[in-house]
């Protein structure tokens, strides 16, 4: 086994895990507090990437682009919440799913109208575009390292926000008993808007961070959102800790499965058989993992205690 390659792939897995966490944390926050299922969460991921791309070209600097794009995505989130989502809180999950499915169509088309059908590649500043040498002679792209660092910082920030601030206290209280929180005189509508915007920003940020690697494209959110769903199902819907741990597990397993499964299969089957079956199995690996975990724990690894 090639240990250098293994370490590099683990870092790649970590990077995917961090992105998944950014998406899943917003989903799980919104679900935990408002009991709202948002299929259109991936649209914020896409909108983030496109807005960031435009602002990067406008300002000439990727980092400034990201910083300016964050309030734009927050605004998009707030507007979405005010116009559509607010009407849906009192409805059942089926209505949430259907209406946000309609929202996806709207977002995809609006992006198509504004930015055109082609994807946009986002250029990185020179100092981010290279590679750095890590311990033991491992060479890894600087930007991917930055993604991991940003993601982990945000994960820590979210932990602090939820557990050690007044807003976090309200968020936790809202998750356990919404009616009581509003009866105590908290503006629950404002809290909902804030949390929704926070979720949108987290998803948007994930889109901004990935855009220099994959480019901003229409429908990019629709693919990754399912993986984010798998993450929050495995972690337990509504649990921040579950989302973080599940995101890391799924990021690692998906990445390692894609790169090493054929080698592992060759141990116990013929090379051609391994070559054909490994891609199929690695494509399904995270879903098989999800099924296995659910067969044992139908509520996920860390189901929130109060619902």
């Amino acid at each position, binding site marked *: 086994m090639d240990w250098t390659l293994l370490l590099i792939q683990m870092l790649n897995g970590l990077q995917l895990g961090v992105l998944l966490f950014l998406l899943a944390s917003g989903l799980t926050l919104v679900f935990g507090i408002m009991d709202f*299922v948002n299929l259109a969460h991936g649209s914020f991921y896409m909108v983030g990437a496109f807005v960031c791309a435009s602002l990067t070209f406008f300002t000439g600097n990727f980092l400034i682009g990201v910083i300016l794009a964050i309030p734009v995505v927050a605004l998009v989130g707030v507007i979405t919440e005010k116009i559509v989502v607010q009407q849906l809180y009192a409805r059942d999950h089926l209505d949430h799913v259907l209406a946000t499915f*309609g929202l996806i169509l*709207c977002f995809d088309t609006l992006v*198509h109208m504004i930015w055109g059908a082609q994807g946009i590649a986002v250029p990185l500043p020179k100092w981010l575009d290279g590679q750095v040498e890590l311990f033991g002679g491992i060479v890894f792209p600087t930007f991917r390292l930055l993604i991991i660092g940003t993601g982990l910082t945000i994960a820590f920030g979210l932990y602090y926000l939820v557990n050690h601030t007044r807003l976090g206290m309200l968020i936790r209280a809202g998750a356990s008993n919404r009616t009581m929180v509003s009866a105590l005189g908290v503006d629950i509508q404002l809290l909902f808007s804030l949390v929704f915007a926070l979720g949108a920003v987290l998803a948007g940020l994930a889109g901004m961070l990935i855009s220099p690697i994959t480019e901003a494209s229409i429908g990019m959110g*629709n693919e990754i959102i399912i993986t984010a769903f798998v993450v929050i199902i495995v972690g337990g819907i509504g649990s921040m800790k579950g989302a973080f741990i599940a995101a890391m597990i799924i990021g690692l397993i998906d990445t390692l499965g894609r790169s090493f499964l054929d080698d592992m299969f060759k141990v116990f089957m013929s090379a051609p058989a391994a070559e054909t079956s490994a891609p199929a199995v*690695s494509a399904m690996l995270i*879903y098989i993992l999800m*099924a296995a975990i659910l067969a044992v724990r139908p509520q996920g690894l860390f189901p929130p205690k109060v619902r």
Partner: protein
Amino acid sequence: MSDTPLNGATPRSSGLLSGWTATTWATAICLVLLAVVPPVSFYAGQPFHVDLATRLVCLSIAAVSLNLILGYGGMVSFGHAAFIGIGAYSVGIPAYHATYGEFDLIASYNGWFHIALALVVSAIFAAITGAISLRTRGVYFIMITMAFGQMVFFLFVSMETYGGDDGLTIDVRSELPLIDLDKPLQLYFLCYGSLLGALFIVHRMVNSRFGMAIQGAKGNELRMQSIGYNTYVYRLVAYIISGAMCGYAGFLLGNFTTFISPEMMDWTRSGELMFMVILGGAATLVGPILGAVAFILLEEILSGFTIYWHLPFGVLLILCVLFARGGLMGFVSQWGRRNG
């Protein structure tokens, strides 16, 4: 949805032919139009209409199958397009091997074999995924069925032999006795007949003891369990039947398009199927068909106006969820009650 009295809830309209209420009229008109319009427009020199109607009827069967579990059973499956894909590849893969060799075991153009394969594989897939996902409730169920659907999507994307992402062309349609699927009208009437069959099965099932148990479990699962029903098994059986029926719809759709790709089982396709059911009216017999008709006609009309037709379409879907609960059949039965 469940609070609107729909077909089956009002005693007068419980039988298909006993007492002609507005819903029964809607059912009859809908089915007669589907039988008459395509052949007429075919002989009037508009063969395109037959293509449109065939696609519509295939998707109607899928929507009817989804309605069985979503409407009557309250199981919000977001992965139903996977069954369409399984059914379609049950035509494509044997036909591929019959043409290009290898895998003699399944290489065949025989339509009966394709149908059997579609039904069996769909049923097995439904049994496995249903057994796991039915252990969960609510939003978990929605997301898990979605994830399993996406799993099948990625499975077919990764199978390079059958074209992977690019899809697979079916060179020879399924061979069935007496009918020739290469003739558009014969294919259409096979689909239409299948739709009638699917409606009959669902109608009989829903009004049987089994169907009552399913609907009872939707209304109050604990109550059904406490009077001695193993609701899990009932739900699982309904899920398997629905999956197999949807796989059959995929068999028809594969024969119609003759080009199949993983794209037809993308999760957005499952969302569209769900919309057909809700738009027409869940837990009504022909609601899914009305929904499919409205959906596909809207798609055709809007896409004729602008390439950005998804925007008004999406807005319409949202408005429909917000303001038109009970779907089209809800309107019909309301209208029927107001006008006696």
